[in-house]
């Protein structure tokens, strides 16, 4: 069973929210693993099986208490400048993508589906992460990690919106609005991230978005001054990180987030249900 976390923009907090949920469900005794169909990042790590995957999935794997493996991130796109992008497929460099040498999207999508299937077989629950916004009108047709994965696997999805820069209701409603109609039933819920202040003032607006879209609000996560690994250059790098071991420091930060989310009444149960458990 699985769920896909989609962001309404880059830096909305998908990676961290997905890691937090890996940690939460792992603590619940569920065999959970992360997955990201396609990742655009220069920050990668080597897995024990000798492959290369995005740093976000490695972090999420540790949060899930398991070893990172290449199937967690079958496609890694590494911009190497001058319009060239290296395609790392199933952990291995496959080709240099240029304007004249595009990748074969159909074939790559098959690889992603295969990796997804292997991961689903090996684990009880997959927590997937989308890439950027799922509704870039100019890119949607060739998308892999967002609507591509939704279409290929039928995975249910949850939107993560960043309230800090404002316009979050427009972002969530607008993302739902632009998702192709046949995929809308897969959009089950949304999460408001990085909120400061008294959550009760949001209630009427959350209700309105629920009524308009049929999605359920899983909760409002508060702004956390905590540092997490950075996947792309747009993420903020500020925040608390304590201790000598950076990995345990990141995990401790996730624990703090989980504890706050529990205090604030985040509906983990509904998320579990949406994932089909």
């Amino acid at each position, binding site marked *: 069973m699985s769920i896909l976390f989609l*962001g*309404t*923009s*880059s*830096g*909305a907090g998908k990676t961290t929210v997905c890691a937090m949920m890996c940690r939460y469900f792992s603590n619940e005794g569920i065999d959970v693993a992360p997955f990201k169909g396609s990742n655009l990042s220069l920050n990668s790590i080597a897995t024990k099986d000798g492959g290369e995957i995005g740093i976000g999935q490695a972090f999420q794997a540790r949060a899930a208490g398991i070893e990172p493996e290449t199937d967690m991130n079958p496609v890694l796109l590494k911009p190497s400048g001058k319009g060239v992008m290296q395609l790392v497929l199933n952990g291995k460099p496959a080709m240099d993508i240029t304007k004249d040498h595009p990748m074969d999207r159909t074939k790559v999508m098959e690889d992603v589906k295969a990796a997804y299937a292997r991961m689903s077989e090996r684990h009880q629950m997959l927590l997937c992460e989308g890439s*950027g*916004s799922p*509704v*870039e*009108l*100019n*890119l949607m047709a060739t998308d892999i990690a967002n609507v591509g994965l939704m279409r290929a696997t039928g995975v249910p999805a949850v939107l993560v919106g960043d309230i800090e*820069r*404002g*316009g979050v*209701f*427009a*972002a*969530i*409603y*607008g*993302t739902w*609005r*632009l998702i192709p109609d046949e995929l809308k039933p897969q959009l089950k819920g949304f999460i408001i991230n990085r909120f400061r*202040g008294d959550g009760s*003032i*949001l*209630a*009427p*607006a959350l209700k*309105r978005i629920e009524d308009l879209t049929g999605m359920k609000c899983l909760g409002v996560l508060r702004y956390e001054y905590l540092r997490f690994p950075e996947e792309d250059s*747009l993420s*903020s*790098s*500020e925040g608390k990180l304590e201790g000598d071991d950076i990995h345990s420091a990141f995990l401790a930060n996730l624990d703090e987030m989980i504890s706050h989310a529990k205090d604030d009444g985040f509906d983990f149960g509904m998320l579990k249900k949406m994932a089909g458990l």
Partner: protein
Amino acid sequence: MEKIVKKVNEEIQRGWLGPDRNCPYHPAHFSGQDCSFCYCPFFPCNDTTFGWELQGRHGPVWNCSDCLFIHRTPVVKFIYSEIERLGIKDAKDPRFDDIFIEAKKRFWKKGKAMMVVGATSDAGKSVTVAAICRILHRKGYLVAPFKSQNMSLNSKVTRHGAEIAMIQVLQAKAAGLTNPDAHMNPILLKPKGDTISQVMVCGKPFADYDVDGYYNEFVPGPGIGIVKEHVEFLKDRYDCVVMEGAGSPAEINIYDKDIANMRAADIADANVILVVNVEWGGSFAYAIGTVELIPEKDRKRIKGIILNNVRGNTENLRPGADKLEELTGIPVIGIIPHADVVLPSEDSEALRGVRSKGEGQSRIGAIRFPRMANFTDLDPLLLENVSVVYVEKPEDLAGVDAIVMPGTKNTVSDLIWMKENGLFDAIKGLWKKIPIAGICGGYQMMGRTLDDSNGIENGKPAVHEGLGFFDNTTSFGEYTKRIIQNEGKLAVGDGGAITGYELHMGMSEVNEKPLVMLDRFHADPEPEGSVREDELTFGTYQHGIFDKPAFRRYFLSFVKHDGKPIDAEAGCDYDEVLEENLDKLADVFGSNMDVEKLLDIAGVRE
């Protein structure tokens, strides 16, 4: 009155003059103004569209200092043609009344308003307004920026001693206006603590409110009337008022209480442009979501969408933009590439996650107070071979070649913050070793003591120990604020020109050699600031002190990098740099948007 009659008689005899570029005050009102009637032949016209009656010391006085009507060339040429036709020789000729009525009938009409709203904070509203102001100004329209409500700690002082947001001052400059005024930003919120803001109305402190009080007392109380009064004032005097929204207009939980966005557009009867920042992704969702969450009666006002800050080829976005047009029924009137311009940033949101600015060789550490205010004071330093590093803790001071302590909304609270996190001692440790400059709040901290025994500044009455670099004492005696614009000269170095403005609570008793002499707006030159060159300490209340080259060069002459003096040769005037960059900005917007549509939206051709 006699003087005015004499001057107008001279003007009648002299005939049409146009812009008087030889006048030392030119342009006193706006660039391109007609100076023929420096003194108005209609004075006092007693028409409340153009002025109002003030109670002066010797009785009522007609105040029309904000009127621009007499400085429009078509008006001036009409008056001269009538003077000639009627054979008028004297300013007291009663037929001027008829000319006035006819001139108003022919050339005055109520201005239009348009508004720029953003899908998020930092969507690029402010620069879009600045660009539109400049584009319309270049086409010969008289335009004024307007933001009903601005929350910002970066403010400036107008000629009339009012405090308004720095960004409206910049936009007024883009519009070619010499004197931005408080009508352009009638409500300014200055965050004081976590939830309380000082509300400034028309540039003067009004009261403090928390979020609840602001939305439930201030807005439905005086708020709406204030917005209406000032936008109408500007519409009487300008062809177009280019308004700026705040945050997102689709915050549906506070929609009915929001007087900064669609409500203001409604009050001003303005067409609206929605700006979306493409850089973070999700821009199409933000755009359609914003449009559709706005109630229908207000949605009709949205006449155009701008996709802003595109890195890479703007053409790639066109198919998506076409689809967006189809879905919303609103044209995408511009796809604007990232504009690489040097302009001050509006609020601290723009500093989020930023640890340094600029790439110059010499590192200037700027103390990043939690309540840091007017941090744009430091921007001109980046014109030199300098980078600015933001300092939040003692370790951040490693390797800095100089320190600047900027202003703060709350000197005492930020002084306590420095003492608690060790910066206070760390800065003391660098005393006499590297140059240290303080501006406003930072300057107050450099003194011996800060006397807040009435608890005005911090709530808790106490006398606080300062850094002790200067033998000065600052007292927060009562809840008052000094707001003043200044010009003058350095009292040290080459005595070059400086400009600045003061905005502060607290008054200082100064026992030091002054840093500057303020001579333009003071009857007698007034010494200000403190300096000890041998101890490398410099302090002043003047915000904007780095704008003109004189102090910037002087201060940098004390800065050493790797033991060697740094080259500070640029010496350019920040004002001119801004002027160039506003042109550059308008070029980028103008060549990537449908300017004809913009003119329709602005309503200036009607």
